[in-house]
């Protein structure tokens, strides 16, 4: 899964990220050098053979994953079937991508093996020629005349080689030619290794998936209640006042439909039930208090997000007011991420004041409390949250996480973005521009602070963003787009709907699955 994550100071100042950047992979900027003996001893055929092994393994992984994706639950027609299918597809898509990556490593290994083979042949010939002329070959490829000639040179006070006595002038051009040849061969090997290592580093920059956690397709009996705000329903599942974490989910296109409202409510109930089973106090708020775009065409416009932003900002302020100790985790899914972005980049004046004091956008009175008696102070700018997550985002109306004004309890908001393999939303945005802004999973969007090594996103959120983006991050980003294209070519068109069924997203919300001995009530 493509991902980006950052922890940054609340003030959105162009300062450095809070945590240190991950160490550069050892392959980056390596000063390793090849030697003549090392090259002669190298095993190019062995590397070629390893490449063949990897190619076969990659192919097997892809074929198996493609077959798993076709093993649809056709004899089952229920909402639970869709969730189960999404989980299967999620694992299959990841395995397809990994198979493709293994195949990519095989191709790179093959290319390096060929470079090694050519260089080794050249060096072997050069060394043979040098030794037949009794020349000395140094490990770095330089070739010198035999010791006797060097002694003569020293005896003649370091006269240049062309001044050697008769019979020896050929040493100079021969040594020079052989040195140039051997050094060129070694340089070729070093270049091939460095570029190959960078490529392998990008291909293998993957996160370890979460440990499996028990899951049930059926709906658990978890009550939720609906707060009918003037702008639409807001469903609350779990105990807001007792929660350690309050997750707000803002959905996107078509999310005003009753079926979508029911679907997110069901997800919330499952998540809260899962959290309870693991001894965690989590409440989930599903936000449908806006008129969501009814189609992809309508979703091109930011109007709905602009309309929703003040209501969301008010909701988050009220959640903070209801439970000041809870961690607020604000999540925007698809177009919902545009809403979150609009809330985090807008102000009360810009999003509601212009529409008159008596009511907000669309006649909605955003001053109406959603969760109880009024009393929450809505910030003048930005939104209350400690963590912000974007799932399958087409852009968030910001060029970097630093442009998001997020009010965290401790002043350090964490911003994360995820994209599952094969998500068609990737067609709507690029690292530089998109329907609603640059791609939030691109390396330039977020600083690297909290990013895992595989998805590190160097580049500060402030001015100069991207200057420190490293090759591995961009290489991985580009490779993920290749994987997307591969999955599309193999008929995967629906992964955008899979986020709320994805085990990795579960872990993002709930943390690692407890081990058996950590389960509450375990005996």
């Amino acid at each position: 899964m493509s991902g980006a994550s950052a922890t940054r100071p609340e003030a959105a100042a162009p300062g450095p990220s809070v945590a240190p950047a991950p160490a550069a992979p050892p392959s980056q900027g390596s000063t390793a050098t090849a030697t003549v003996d090392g090259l002669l001893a190298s095993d190019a055929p062995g590397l070629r053979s390893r490449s063949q092994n990897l190619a076969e393994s990659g192919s097997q992984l892809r074929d198996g994953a493609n077959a798993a994706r076709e093993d649809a639950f056709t004899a089952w027609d229920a909402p639970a079937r869709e969730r189960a299918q999404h989980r299967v597809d999620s694992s299959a898509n990841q395995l397809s991508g990994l198979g493709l990556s293994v195949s990519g490593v095989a191709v790179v290994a093959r290319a390096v093996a060929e470079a090694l083979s050519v260089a080794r042949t050249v060096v072997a010939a050069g060394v043979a020629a040098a030794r037949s002329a009794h020349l000395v070959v140094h490990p770095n490829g330089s070739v010198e005349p035999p010791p006797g000639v060097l002694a003569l040179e020293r005896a003649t006070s370091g006269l240049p080689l062309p001044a050697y006595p008769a019979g020896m002038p050929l040493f100079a051009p021969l040594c020079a030619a052989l040195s140039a040849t051997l050094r060129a061969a070694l340089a070729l090997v070093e270049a091939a290794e460095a570029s190959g290592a960078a490529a392998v580093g990008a291909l293998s920059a993957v996160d370890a998936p979460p440990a499996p956690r028990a899951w049930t397709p059926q709906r658990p009996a978890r009550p939720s209640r609906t707060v009918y705000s003037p702008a639409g329903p807001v469903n609350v599942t779990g105990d807001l006042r007792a929660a350690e974490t309050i997750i707000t989910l803002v959905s996107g296109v078509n999310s005003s439909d009753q079926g979508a409202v029911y679907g997110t409510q069901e997800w919330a109930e499952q998540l809260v039930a899962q959290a309870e089973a693991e001894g965690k106090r989590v409440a989930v708020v599903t936000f449908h208090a806006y008129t969501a775009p009814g189609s992809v065409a309508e979703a091109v416009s930011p109007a709905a997000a602009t309309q929703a932003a003040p209501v969301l900002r008010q909701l988050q302020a009220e959640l903070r007011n209801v439970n000041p100790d809870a961690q607020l985790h604000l999540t925007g899914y698809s177009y919902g991420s545009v809403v979150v972005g609009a809330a985090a980049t807008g102000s009360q004046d810009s999003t509601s004041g212009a529409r008159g004091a008596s009511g907000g956008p669309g006649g909605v009175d955003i001053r109406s409390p959603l969760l109880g008696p009024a009393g929450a102070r809505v910030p003048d700018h930005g939104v209350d949250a400690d963590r912000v997550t974007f799932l399958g985002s087409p852009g968030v109306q910001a060029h970097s996480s630093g442009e998001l004004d997020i009010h965290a309890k401790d002043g350090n908001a964490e911003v994360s973005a995820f994209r599952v393999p094969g998500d068609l939303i990737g067609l709507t945005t690029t690292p530089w521009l998109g329907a609603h802004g640059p791609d939030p999973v691109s390396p330039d969007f977020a600083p690297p602070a909290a990013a895992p090594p595989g998805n590190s996103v160097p580049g500060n959120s402030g001015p100069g963003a991207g200057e420190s983006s490293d090759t591995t991050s961009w290489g991985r980003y580009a490779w993920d787009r290749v994987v997307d294209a591969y999955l599309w070519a193999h008929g995967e068109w629906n992964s955008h709907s899979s986020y709320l069924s994805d085990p990795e997203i579960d872990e993002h919300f709930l943390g690692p699955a407890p081990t058996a001995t950590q389960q509450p009530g375990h005996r």
Partner: protein
Amino acid sequence: MNIDPPMVVATCTRLRSRAEDAHRVAAEVQGLPAVSTPAGAFGAALTRGVPALATAAAGHARLLEQTARDVERYCHEVIEVDAESGHAFGGPEGQLGGAQLGMGGGVAPPPEARKRAVAGAGEGR
């Protein structure tokens, strides 16, 4: 809800088989011996990167296997509910989702017969 547990369990059996295959391939990749290269950079990258890919593949294979097991377990629970009630297929979700029908929409085989079918499929026969 409309579900044919034996057929769904058969699908799960195939998925578990796919997961086992992926596990095997991941283990093979994991077990490939290291390769040294003259400058060392590429060999080190392979030594680091290939196991990372294999570990990730094994992890996703486990997730696939877990999903198949969860769905299997769910199907068995559906059967148990129906074996007790004597009704057609259905379960907690059926009470929410609508008609409780087996594939074919009508008369379901006796509960014991269905349980045997599920057990057979679950054991990969």
